[in-house]
């Protein structure tokens, strides 16, 4: 059974204090690993897709990396507007755009 575990569950940082969020996964054949940002009461907002070990993608203060067992979301010099829940999801290799298996998320709070 596919599994995604995110840690920590919650993280409180000071503005400008860099850190990393972890996503460990178990899947029988990975098509892609996805990172989303979710604000309270809203739908997840797509951030990145990673397809193979060693791949990295960046967007503003965020950088996502992928190994064969886990992914990291690095946040550099965060600002209060980066506060949100960050969700990690995996998609199993197969035909078409299959359903995603999500972790529970990391609730990130950036204090001014």
């Amino acid at each position, binding site marked *: 059974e596919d599994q995604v575990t995110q840690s920590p569950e919650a993280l409180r940082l000071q503005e400008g204090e860099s850190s990393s969020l972890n996503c460990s996964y178990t899947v029988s054949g990975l*098509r892609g690993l996805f990172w989303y940002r979710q604000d309270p009461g809203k739908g997840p907002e797509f951030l990145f897709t990673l397809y193979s070990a060693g791949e990295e993608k960046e967007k503003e203060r965020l950088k996502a990396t992928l190994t064969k067992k886990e992914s990291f979301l690095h946040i550099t010099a965060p600002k209060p507007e980066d506060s949100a829940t960050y969700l990690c999801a995996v998609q199993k290799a197969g035909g078409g755009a299959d359903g*995603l298996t999500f972790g529970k998320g990391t609730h990130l709070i950036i204090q001014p």
Partner: protein
Amino acid sequence: DAGVTQSPTHLIKTRGQQVTLRCSPKSGHDTVSWYQQALGQGPQFIFQYYEEEERQRGNFPDRFSGHQFPNYSSELNVNALLLGDSALYLCASSPLEGSSYNEQFFGPGTRLTVL
């Protein structure tokens, strides 16, 4: 370009009732997936529709059913509502083809409360 839209925004029902939620995919997208997100949890995959057929289903009972129309819009139906069905219901759409064909873009969700 409008993104994924869902209606209604909020809904309150009582146990045993039936509910229908609606979703319009992003322009150019033909695949629609539905997810249930309980408070404090990640979204859970319910099912996916492509070419008006259910092509994949998660671990949800038959009380959950759906439909996709020729214009790619979709409905989620839940019968015999239980208190545990209270959640945020999310619709996601995927593009027809191209390098991002498996990337799913989510709508704002419908908050269902069952009393």
